[in-house]
């Protein structure tokens, strides 16, 4: 179980997370939705310890990630697997070496078994006989699947998905959705996904949480979110151009525009 309590993170004067509270039950998939630039990626990076939160707690099975030193974090991160937005495959290595990376670093299997284990992990994401290919030779969907195979290779308890379907065609997006669901069912992993693709969110989520202005404004089952009364959430999930989010956004644009002008005068 993952419990996030009062998580705050800012960059300089820009407050990105302003007290996030979220509980992610074991074995379930929680999807965090929110507009671009609302701090979804920052949230996920704080959970895995890639970014240090300014305040608050992230409890993984009762252990607070935010208070750990680098060495404890390395140990704690073994529980995690993460799928990055652009798959983030190591482009100097072939597919087999990518998937085997954590297995070799952690010496989880003797070297002569690694190849078979890798083939097994690739089979779980529906790929075979591609170990010798380089990442540059793969399509976007295949990269994501290889990234997923790499993330599950060391058998993590928690999977983090950073926009798993972004940039894929609808069919490939659905293939990834199915994979996310089947991995949850076959491995029983706890997962957190962040996305702004509502079709994907409805399909893969056990719970959906909406991040807005640095806070979780609503948590619920897909059905509850679909029928929400919260104007912010309903604007987002229905994808309307007009509503409270846009109005705020336009104010923000005007503000940036104004401060940009004065900034330029100062520079001269």
């Amino acid at each position, binding site marked *: 179980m993952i419990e996030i309590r009062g998580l705050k993170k800012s960059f300089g004067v820009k407050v990105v997370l302003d007290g996030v509270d979220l509980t992610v039950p074991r074995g379930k998939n929680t999807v965090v939705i929110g507009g671009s630039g609302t701090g979804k990626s920052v949230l996920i990076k704080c959970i895995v310890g890639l970014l240090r939160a300014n305040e608050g707690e992230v409890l993984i099975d009762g252990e607070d990630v935010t208070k750990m030193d680098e060495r404890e974090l390395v140990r704690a991160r073994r529980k995690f697997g993460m799928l990055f937005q652009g798959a983030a495959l190591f482009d100097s290595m072939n597919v087999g070496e990518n998937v085997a990376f954590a297995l070799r670093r*952690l010496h989880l299997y003797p070297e002569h078994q690694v190849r078979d284990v890798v083939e097994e992990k690739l089979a779980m994401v529906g790929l075979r006989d591609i170990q010798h290919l380089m990442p540059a030779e793969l399509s976007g969907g295949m990269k994501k699947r290889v990234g997923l195979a790499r993330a599950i290779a060391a058998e993590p308890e928690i999977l983090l998905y950073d926009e798993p379907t972004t940039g894929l065609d609808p069919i490939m997006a659905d293939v990834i959705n199915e994979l996310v669901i089947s991995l949850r069912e076959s491995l029983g992993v706890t997962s957190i996904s962040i996305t702004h693709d509502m079709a994907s969110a409805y399909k893969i989520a056990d719970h959906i949480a909406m991040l807005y202005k640095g806070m979780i404004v609503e948590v619920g089952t897909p059905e509850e979110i679909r029928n929400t009364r919260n104007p912010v959430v309903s604007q987002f999930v229905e994808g309307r151009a007009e509503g409270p989010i846009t109005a705020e956004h336009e104010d923000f644009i005007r503000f940036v525009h104004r401060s940009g002008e004065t900034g330029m005068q100062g520079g001269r």
Partner: protein
Amino acid sequence: MADIGKRNGLTAVLDTFGTKVFRMVEHLGNIFILLLQCLGWLFRPPSEIRNIVKQMEEVGINSMPVVLVTATFTGMVLALQSWSGFQRFQATSFVGSVVALSITRELGPVFAGLIVSGRVGASIAAELGTMKVTEQIDALVTLATNPVKYLVVPRVVASTLVLPVLVIMADLVGILGGYFVSVYLLGANPYVYTEKTFQYLESWDIYSGLIKAAVFGFLIALISCYNGFIAEGGAEGVGRATTRAVVASSMAVLVSDYFMTSLMF
């Protein structure tokens, strides 16, 4: 925010300058922290020997041709210049000594350092910068691997060990280049030239050059790794990081060269 508009020219200049200085001090501090992390991870298991060997190949074998060509021509032009200069006071017999001392003490290490700054510094910063902006460095972290240990330590160790080797070869071909120009083109007596080459050359001249080379290799790799790590903002950011890495490591080579020389002799 309102008072920004009221600034006059002088404060604006000071402001820009001051920001630059602050930024530079910040970078120096960060590089020092990276250095400490690097030392901290150096001897911790698992060992990165395979990775180090791969980087040594990358730095050493691939830089060798260009370093050797540079050193040969440096030796040649040095012979040519000192010959025409020394002719004015009938001291051409000392050309061998001048070439040998200049190459081993100064030009071998410095030119090798500058070439490696350009070649290796750029490639390190571009590679790590690309890894940074495509989240590959974050991916390393989530795969239970410390990026400093996996990426920085092997590069720094390899570069520190390999540069002295490159410089030994640069010394050799530089002196040979000088010899060929003096003996075959300018008509120096080969026996006198060889004797003068070794007469004033002490082993410390060579060792000091090798120590310099090791320090250059260390600085180049560290600075370039740092610049790769702080790259952000896509292809343009990687380009900027690469430029900064080359400029900063070349400057580090020349500046540290002065201070090491003043300490050594």
